[in-house]
């Protein structure tokens, strides 16, 4: 059996999944000041009376690192950056302990200016003297040639508790994002490590020795031990959990929209033939733009408990939540109150709901029914409009080949999958206001935790070969190889897939059911004078997000037992 656990803002959902389907589901309140207790309580409760031997793993989606970054509760981190000519590296300063050093590498990975050992050692001394324990090292174009980062790392030796090298963090080109991502990894490293070590230890003392996996924002999981070197890949995994919870119910031959409607926000994503779309660059958190692989998701401030206000004769919904619906004793009217008044759903105190909507009706100068209708319609419409804008943005993303531009098809989802607490209520409005088929995801209130539990291990490999310089590198994998000048794109693809296979298994994938996919493979003839001097080859391959092998019977059972 598998445990899926998703920490939300107010509740933490935990499910136990077995071949018989959804074995057990619970909700525990989230104590944001003590996530450790929350997670542990959730895991203990879900396993009550279950022999731990039957539990193969627990997949956790937590807000631990996210909260720390958003609230700025992170330790002081040292950054050593070598940029060379280009944008002023001072623009990417991460904090007070940010140092730029000599050294430059060009776009093909050739050294322009060497690293100065004395200068690096001086910076290291200064960081050490200030009590810095975690350091990030980034050089421009390190993913073309990591030599400078490696050299700086060697100079630092074991003076610091943990040193993160930029090229091991992500394979794409983007120096400012590499700096931000490396910084975040160093920043959340201690809290991530301590937290999960504590979880594992506590579980062990309670006789719960199951392996822990952690959900990533790209909708895949990784083993806890693999996460130690990539702690920032645990941020913002919440929306991914929900998306993965809907994957089993998505059409396999067309695009669909996923809406996770919660109390405060609605998260949106797109599935194409049952596979979630990924953000081509990486996730943004606060002011940090990163290279952390993530699903393409958008979050808007409209949910069941959004505050409803009337200003200048117009209804405003959200973006804030001031508490529960008035029907449940909350302070201000919410869409949920409108839903209760309209009889679309029912719960709470009907009188309180009426009172809530009456205040809106008075402000609008209309009757109860009309006010409730307008609140509900506007909430649904806002969600649909924002979803439309997201689709437009995805369709407007640039492509760089004639073929892609000419053949590129437009995304036009005709189905909407809804999950989250108020899903069935909102579904009625969405169905009425849109031209899409609207389906409520089975077990909509815990689909997020189901998604976390059933997500497969994902990863990506970026590979680069330059046959003129006779080198091939996959910087994240610590892979550098001398290649013959006759090296081809096919050779590069094979090498990439081989690296990917090994990486996926190390991160926790099932070696017998690996679904590897080449995302991009391009080979450019490098012509110098009138002769072809070599080939410049770029390959990217991934294990795309999806559900673990053999999930079908589980999903079917969940489907059968839905709405019961």
């Amino acid at each position: 059996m598998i445990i899926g656990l998703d920490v939300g803002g107010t509740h933490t959902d935990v499910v136990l999944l077995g071949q018989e389907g959804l074995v057990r589901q619970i909700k525990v309140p989230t104590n944001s000041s003590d996530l450790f207790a929350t997670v542990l309580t959730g895991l203990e409760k879900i396993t009550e009376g279950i022999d731990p031997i039957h539990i193969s793993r627990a997949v956790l989606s937590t807000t631990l690192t996210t909260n720390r970054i958003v609230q700025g509760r992170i330790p002081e981190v040292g950054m050593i950056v070598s940029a060379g000519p280009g944008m002023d590296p001072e623009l990417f300063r991460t904090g007070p302990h940010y140092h730029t050093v000599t050294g430059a590498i060009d776009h093909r990975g050739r050294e322009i200016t060497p690293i100065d050992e004395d200068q690096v050692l001086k910076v290291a001394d200064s960081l050490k003297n200030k009590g810095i324990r975690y350091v990030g090292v980034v050089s421009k174009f390190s993913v073309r040639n990591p030599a400078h980062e490696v050299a700086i790392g060697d100079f630092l030796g074991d003076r610091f508790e943990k040193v993160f090298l930029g090229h091991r963090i992500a394979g794409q080109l983007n120096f400012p994002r590499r700096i931000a991502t490396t910084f975040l990894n160093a920043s959340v490293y201690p809290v991530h490590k301590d937290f999960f070590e504590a979880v594992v230890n506590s579980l062990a003392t309670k006789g719960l020795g199951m392996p822990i996996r952690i959900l990533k924002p790209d909708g895949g999981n990784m083993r806890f031990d693999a996460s130690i070197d990539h702690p920032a890949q645990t941020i913002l995994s919440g929306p991914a959990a929900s998306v993965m919870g809907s994957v089993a119910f998505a059409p396999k031959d067309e695009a669909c929209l996923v809406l996770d409607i919660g109390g405060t926000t609605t998260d949106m994503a797109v599935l194409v033939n049952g596979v979630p779309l990924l953000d081509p660059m990486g996730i943004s958190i606060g002011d940090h733009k990163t290279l952390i692989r993530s699903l393409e998701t958008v979050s808007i401030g409209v949910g069941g408990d959004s505050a409803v206000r009337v200003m200048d004769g117009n209804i405003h919904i959200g973006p804030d939540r001031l508490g529960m619906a008035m029907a449940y004793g909350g302070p201000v009217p919410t869409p949920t109150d409108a839903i209760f008044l309209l009889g679309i759903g029912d719960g709470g105190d009907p009188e309180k709901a009426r009172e809530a909507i009456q205040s809106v009706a008075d402000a609008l100068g209309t009757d109860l029914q009309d006010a409730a209708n307008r609140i509900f319609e506007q909430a649904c419409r806002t969600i649909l409009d924002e979803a439309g804008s997201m689709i437009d943005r995805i369709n407007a993303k640039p492509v760089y080949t004639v073929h892609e531009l000419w053949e590129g098809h437009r995304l036009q989802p005709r189905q909407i999958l809804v999950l989250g607490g108020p899903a069935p209520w909102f579904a009625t409005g969405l169905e009425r206001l849109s031209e899409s088929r609207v389906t409520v995801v089975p077990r909509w209130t815990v689909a997020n935790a189901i998604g976390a539990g059933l997500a497969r291990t994902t990863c990506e490999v970026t590979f680069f070969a330059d046959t003129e310089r006779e080198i091939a590198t996959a910087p994240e994998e610590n892979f550098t190889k001398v290649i013959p000048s006759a090296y081809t794109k096919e050779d590069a693809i094979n090498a990439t897939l081989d690296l990917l296979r090994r990486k996926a298994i190390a991160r926790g994938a099932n070696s017998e059911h690996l679904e590897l996919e080449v995302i991009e493979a391009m080979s450019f003839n490098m012509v110098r004078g009138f002769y072809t001097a070599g080939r410049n080859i770029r390959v990217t391959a991934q294990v795309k997000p999806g559900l673990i092998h053999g999930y079908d019977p589980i999903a079917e059972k969940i489907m059968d037992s839905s709405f019961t």
Partner: protein
Amino acid sequence: MLRARHKTGLVFFPAFDWAISPTHPEREERLLYTQDQVFEEGLLDIEGIIEYKPDLVTKKDVQRVHFCVPDLWAVMTESHFISAGGAKTIAMAVMDKQVERGFALVRPPGHHANRVVHGARGFCNVNIEAIMIEYIRKAYGVNRVAIVDTDCHHGDGTQDIYWHDPDTLFISIHQDGRTLYPGSGFLSELGGPNAVGKTINIPLPPNTSGEGILHAIREVVLPILKEFQPEIIVNSAGQDNHYSDPITNMNFSAQGYAELTTLLKPDIAVLEGGYAIEGALPYVNAGIILAMAGMDYSHLQEPDFDPVKIRQSPEVSRWVHKTCDKVLENWHQRRQLADVYRGDYQLMNRDRDIYYDTDNIHEHQQETIRVCDSCGGALKIDSAARGLKHVLAMHIPRNACERCREQGYQWYDSADTTHYDKVYLQDRHGDVITEKSQAT
């Protein structure tokens, strides 16, 4: 957060799957390292630099500018629809005020493409700037446009298209035509009888460096622009004045290009040539993007940059200054020059041979323009490509007066289709594009 001072639109279309031929300078690899540099510097993440996906141009967008022989499909490939479309996309973003300025970093280029197109010359099939400009004139009612062509090669195609247009100021700064393709762009090329002085050529000697090029911008281009008062400034941003360019002999740098852009303040820049794909383009393009956005580019520099090595000689400086003085003199005397040039003619002819180096086509043109005080004048072009097609093409300008409109139609209606493979009419005033031939 990093924010652009000027909101800047960018279309980046490297056409990674298109080449004239595998080892041609205009090949897949051309913008590869530029992409690497732009991505690695994180330029697309800057708040206020907005990347657009190029739209395609329509058939009519192209026919508004060109006479394509034998037809549009023979001269346009998919990639030309996209690169012209990229320029159009940027222009629309600027005109719609989504951005203050825009840069179309697209290929293939276009500034050697003339009004009549039998094939490719100077790596160009259709003139992407002209297609863009005529589109915004049609869609947004823009009238006065200035084009500053800073490619190292003379922008002869753009010059040809706007030769008779008094509302388009075309300025080309380039390496002297006696030393470089296409061998034109001399001081004496000043525009047709109805637009004398609106074509301006600033031929600079080989080995001119930043000092000379920026002198021409400051002392000649900017004052003339100020006087002309364009609604829109377009920069044909070729990058082959760079000291490392393999097919030219100038000594400009990435810093120089960025400064040129800062001085010129173009509303729209469109990439033209530039074939030092590793040593120049990544840095020049980054510099132009930063300059367009009004951001600091002082740390930008080529790895092998050595200011001493590329400093221009006193002799070059003297030549540059002399050329610039002469250009200004012509500009100030343009009305007198026009009077002398026009004399008492009502129709004026131009007879020339045009060579298409890329496709090896020899074209002979006889051009007749109606001398007119109120508009650009009705234009008739008799064009024969050796061993290929012979066509007759009539152009009636946007702001054509009644007499020129009549003249254009009279030419078209009376054209004997037995003499030509095709007869074209491009009536910009009436927005009519039509053609006739014996077969139809």
